[in-house]
């Protein structure tokens, strides 16, 4: 069965300034990032949709001890998109040593950054980023 939207196409979309996802033709739920079945009902009739790219921070952490290939400190967060799905990304444009306690609930715009290939990765990667608005 063909993939309605692969992870590579999802990232090509981000690089072109578009947040792509899938809208279920059965239950209407948005699946972002994409997968082969609807994240809610498992249905396979999915249509590529453009999301508005806006959401709000639901939770976050400041990573102080980083994996090989990353330089701490940085913020990782889960944001709830306006259309419902939750996405993981890095919160950018903030000094992590400032008080970060008020981050939950802040509105963000989804962007991206390209990460060079890591050891044990299948080539270049793309991380979602969140810009505070």
């Amino acid at each position, binding site marked *: 069965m063909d993939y309605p939207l692969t*992870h590579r196409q999802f990232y090509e979309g981000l690089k072109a300034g578009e947040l792509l996802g899938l809208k279920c033709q059965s239950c209407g739920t948005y699946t972002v*990032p994409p997968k082969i079945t609807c*994240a809610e009902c498992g249905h396979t009739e999915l249509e590529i949709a453009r999301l508005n790219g806006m959401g709000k921070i*639901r*939770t*976050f*952490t*400041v*990573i*102080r*001890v*980083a*994996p*090989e*290939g*990353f330089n701490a400190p*940085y913020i*990782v*967060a*889960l944001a*709830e998109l306006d259309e419902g*799905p*939750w*996405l*993981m*990304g*890095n919160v950018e444009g903030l000094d992590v040593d400032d008080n*970060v*306690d008020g981050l*939950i609930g802040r509105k963000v715009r989804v962007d991206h950054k390209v*990460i060079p290939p*890591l*050891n*044990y*990765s*299948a080539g270049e*990667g*793309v*991380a*979602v980023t969140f810009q505070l608005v």
Partner: protein
Amino acid sequence: MRKVAIAGVGMTKFGRSDKSGVELFAGAAMEAITSSNIKTREVQALFLGNVLGDFEEGQLNIAPLCANELGLPVDVPATRVEGACASAGVAIREAFIWVASGYYDIVLAGGVERATAMDTPLATRTFAMSSESRYEVFTGVTFPGVFGMVARLYADKYGLSLQTLKEQMAMVAVKNHKHGAKNPLAQFQKEISLETVLKSPMVADPLQLFDCCPFTDGAAAIVVASADIIGKLTDKPVYILGVGQGSNGSLGRQKDITRIKAREAAAGQAYKMAGLRPSDIDLVELHDCFTIAEIVASEGMGFFEFGTGGKAVEKGETAIGGRLPINPSGGLKAKGHPIGATGAAQAYEIVKQLRGECGERQVDGARIGMSDTLGGDLATVVDIIYGV
């Protein structure tokens, strides 16, 4: 389904070891086999949890090497099981199913890990390989980071100040170190103070160093046998009354990560099979890889209302001597967390507790125990109920 029991258990000292993975496992397994009054040639299958042998020792496919080391016959299938930190829980559930089905009578299950063979940056990277490599790994998320996000969301959802939650989390660490101090196999056999936890370096906000379990080398093993023959193996059988396993997708797909749905599913299956309820459980070994992880696990398994697990710790309900002792072994926090072996180490503790062999850390009158092992980004959870 046939009734299934545990005949014997074995476990190495947890901590740093210069033994190889094969040697660690063989030591634990031989203890389990010997204490089951069987010969190695009577074992019919091996399920072995091992997560990162590839990175630790350059060793893939460790299971048949362990089988050979032990002298198991060549017709014994030996299978490595990988479910991240839940690997040995998965291995025990597999052993249970094969024996319950009647296919085998005696199966060896367990796990091994040599996490300290890696330096911290490589260990942090490889542990994070359980995150979604397409959509989440490139953010640099770490395993402590996952539970840092659980803690922040938990405080926000239940209207707790972060300070209050952090103090409750610190109490989990203090309690588990107090338990671990009474466990001669624990990595840390030393009590700590609240101040030690709250003044330790930040790892992944709001988790500090003493909110986190250590990297650990170690192994544990159990002999699982049909209840039909258990009388020949031991006069102190411990029965596996119920098992359950659940699966979640990436962290983003799970949304509210204070409620780990794979755990609620696994615990539900185990309770249903055993015909028991949370109030029937006398002691628990659960997955306290981080202090907040113990709080959410104690709620997800049904012991406390959601949002009140921290309060129960504060009131001493989960200490030895309390209403429901949690992690009398010291848990992952103090006993240590050799990730591929942890589920089997939990089984080891519960079997010893139900047999009344735990000395200073004995939970008096314990007859039913429950274990809970979690792997990956809250992705694999195995819950098992044991009874005498």
